[in-house]
């Protein structure tokens, strides 16, 4: 079992105009393809509402992956707009562990997302403790 604190984002409360922190379940990951591994970590949001892992296309180029050779799919968020992503099998490292998974890379993706297929399914349970601002990955 691994436990992680939620990570802070700066948030300007529009009602009070005060600066606050929005704490969110982010995980620091590195991506790998063949013998290349990203030099720096990427902060990715753990999102149980996302069907798959979605990452910005630029992160594929860093590891020498021609992401458009992957499986082309259409994805949509909560609005009506769909966009194209390409699924590729890559390595993902977090906290010293390496797993093989599928990440869908797309243009104009701003927040890398770890979803149910390709992340949550590697664990027996993923527990969110919102009150105490942490989450557990239970294998």
């Amino acid at each position: 079992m691994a436990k992680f604190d939620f990570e802070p984002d700066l948030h300007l409360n529009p009602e009070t105009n005060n600066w606050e922190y929005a704490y969110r379940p982010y995980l620091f990951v590195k991506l790998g393809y063949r013998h290349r591994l990203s030099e720096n970590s990427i902060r990715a949001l753990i999102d149980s509402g996302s069907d798959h892992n979605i990452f910005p296309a630029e992160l594929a180029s860093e590891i020498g992956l021609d992401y458009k050779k992957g499986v082309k799919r259409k994805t949509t968020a909560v609005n009506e707009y769909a966009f194209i992503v390409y699924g590729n099998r890559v390595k993902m490292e977090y906290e010293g562990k390496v797993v093989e998974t599928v990440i869908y890379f797309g243009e104009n993706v701003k927040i890398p997302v770890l979803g149910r297929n390709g992340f949550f399914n590697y664990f027996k349970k993923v527990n969110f403790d919102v009150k105490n601002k942490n989450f557990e990955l239970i294998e």
Partner: protein
Amino acid sequence: MTINKAFKQHENEWVLTDRKYSKVILSNKDLGKLQKEVKKKKVKDAVVMFIPPFDAFITS
């Protein structure tokens, strides 16, 4: 953990920072350009992250 207030200048940008958010090492609105700078300066073991809009919440 808190974020250095210097991050206020980087809304909607990609930044390279350390794990404790103590400073912004590099920043750019374009992730591709940021990656080129990172490679040029040979920065390792830092964190790449997007600074979401300060007055918005995130949905999937």
